[in-house]
C-alpha cells in the first residue's frame, strides 16, 4: 500500500486519490492560436524527473498539488493549491 499525504486529511492510501496530471499554464483564451491550444490540451509533462501535479482526495473532493518523481515514484511533498497561486 502506498501512502499519499493529503494536506487536509493527512496520510491516506493512494487508492483514495485520483490523479489529474501535471500542472500546466492556462493559455490566454483570447490571444492563443490553435497550435498552442493543441499543445495545452494534448501535451503534458512526461520527462523523466520531478513533476508537479494535481490530485484529488476523492471522499472529501479536495484538490491539491504534489511533487512526485516520475521514475522512482517518490512523493516529495504535497501542498495546498493556494501556494501555487502565491508562487506565480
Amino acid at each position, binding site marked *: *500500500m*502506498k501512502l499519499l499525504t493529503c494536506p487536509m486529511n493527512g496520510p491516506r492510501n*493512494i*487508492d483514495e486519490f*485520483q*490523479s489529474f*496530471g*501535471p500542472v500546466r499554464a492556462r493559455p490566454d483564451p483570447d490571444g492563443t492560436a*490553435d*497550435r498552442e491550444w*493543441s499543445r495545452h*490540451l*494534448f*501535451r*503534458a509533462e*512526461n*520527462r*523523466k524527473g520531478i*513533476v508537479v*501535479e494535481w490530485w484529488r482526495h476523492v471522499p472529501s473532493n479536495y484538490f491539491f498539488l504534489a511533487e512526485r518523481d*516520475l*521514475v*522512482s*515514484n517518490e512523493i516529495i511533498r504535497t501542498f495546498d493549491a493556494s501556494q501555487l497561486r502565491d508562487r506565480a
Partner: protein
Amino acid sequence: MTFRLLKYGLSRDYPVSGDIPATPELKPAYDVVIIGGGGHGLSCAHHLAKYHGIKSVAVLEKAYLAGGNTARNTTTIRSNYITPEGIAFYKEGVELFERLSQELDFNVMFSQRGQLTLAHSEATMRSFHMRAEMGKHMGTRTEVVDQKGVEELCPLLNMDYGGPLEIIGGLWHADGGTARHDAVAWGYAAQASRRGVEIHQRTEVQGFEAVGDRVQAVKTNRGRIACGQVLIATGGMNYDVALMAGVELPIRCYPLQAMVTQPLKPWLHTLVSSVSLHTYLVQSSRGEVVIGGGSDPYQLYSTRSTLDMKEHLAEGAVHLFPFLQGVRLLRQWAGITDMTPDYSPIMGASPLTNLWLDCGWGTWGFKATPVAGKRMAQTIAEGRVPDILKPFALERFETFRLLNEMGATAASH
C-alpha cells in the same frame, strides 16, 4: 536419431542452432537504423529486407531482443475498433496474422478463437451496436449478441442475473485471436537476419546528431552510426527517445500490469473481456489464464507491480468465473506504455525529414506488429506515407483530427 540423442545426451557440447546471430561489430553507417528491437522494429526490418530489397539495416536494442512490451503483452489480436481509419488498419493487421506462420516459417501459434466483450449496461450495449455496425461496414466479423448468445459462446460465465453486474449482452468478434508474442518477435528477427539485417543487442541510442532538418547520425553506447533513414520504435521509451531528437510527442507513460494463473485444463475457449470490470481473460496454450485490465491510475516510468492492481484484477476475474477463486497466481509483471490522448498510435513523418515514427502504441500495439512493420517499411522505402497510415500522423493533434479509440481500447487492448 537414437544415436544422436545418445551422443549429445551424454556430451556437454550440443551444437546450439541459434536463430539470431550474435551481435556483430557496428559499421560506421547504415541505410536504415531502427531504434528498438521489439516486435515493431524487427517487423519493419523484415519487411525492408524482404519486400524492398533494403539490406543495410541495423536494429539497435538497448537490452535483449523483444524484452520490452512485446514480451509483456497479453496478446489480444482484434480489429473491432470504432473509427473507420482504425478498423481499416487493424483489419489488415489481423489478416497478416492469419498468414504469419507461413510468412515467417515459424509457428507463431495464432489461434483465432474469437473475442467476446461483455456489456453490463445499456450504455455499453449502445456503443457495441455502433462498433458492430462500423465493423460490418468495414468488412470485419463483429456482431452484437444477446444474453443467450453470450451463454452459448461462454457457458461458464457468471451471468449475475438480477445482480448489479448482470451481463445483458456482448460484442462478438469472430476475427479476434491470440498468438505467441516471443515467436512473433523471434520469427521476424530470424527472417530479417537471414536476409542480412544486423541486430545489435545491448546497443542503446543516447542521442542524435542533426544538421538542419536531417538526422546525420545516432550516438550509441558503442559509438556513432551515420544513417540514411531512422525509425523510432522504442515502445515505452518513445517519448524519451524522440525528445533526444528534439521532437516532443503527445505521450504520457503509464504502467500496465498483468498476471497469469497456474495451468488449468482447457476451459476458456474465447477471449473474454468486461468493460465495466476493467478485466479481461484468455487461456494460453499452456493452460495458464492470462488476466489483464486497465492502465495504472497515474503516470510513472516504472515496471513495478502493485497489490492494489492485482486485487482489482483478481476481483474482476473471480466475479466473471467464481470457480477461479482457489486458483494460484504464477507470475505477475508490468510494462511501461506510451499512451496517446486518443488511444491511437502515431505513425509516419516527424519534423525531421529522415526520422520516422512508429510510436504511441500504448496498451494496444502487439496486434499491429505485422502491419505497422509492413507499412512503416513501405514508408521508409518510398519516402512517403501510404494512405492507410495518413490518419495516424503526428499533426492530427494540431489540426484537432483525433482518432478516438478510447471506448474501444481501454478494457481490452
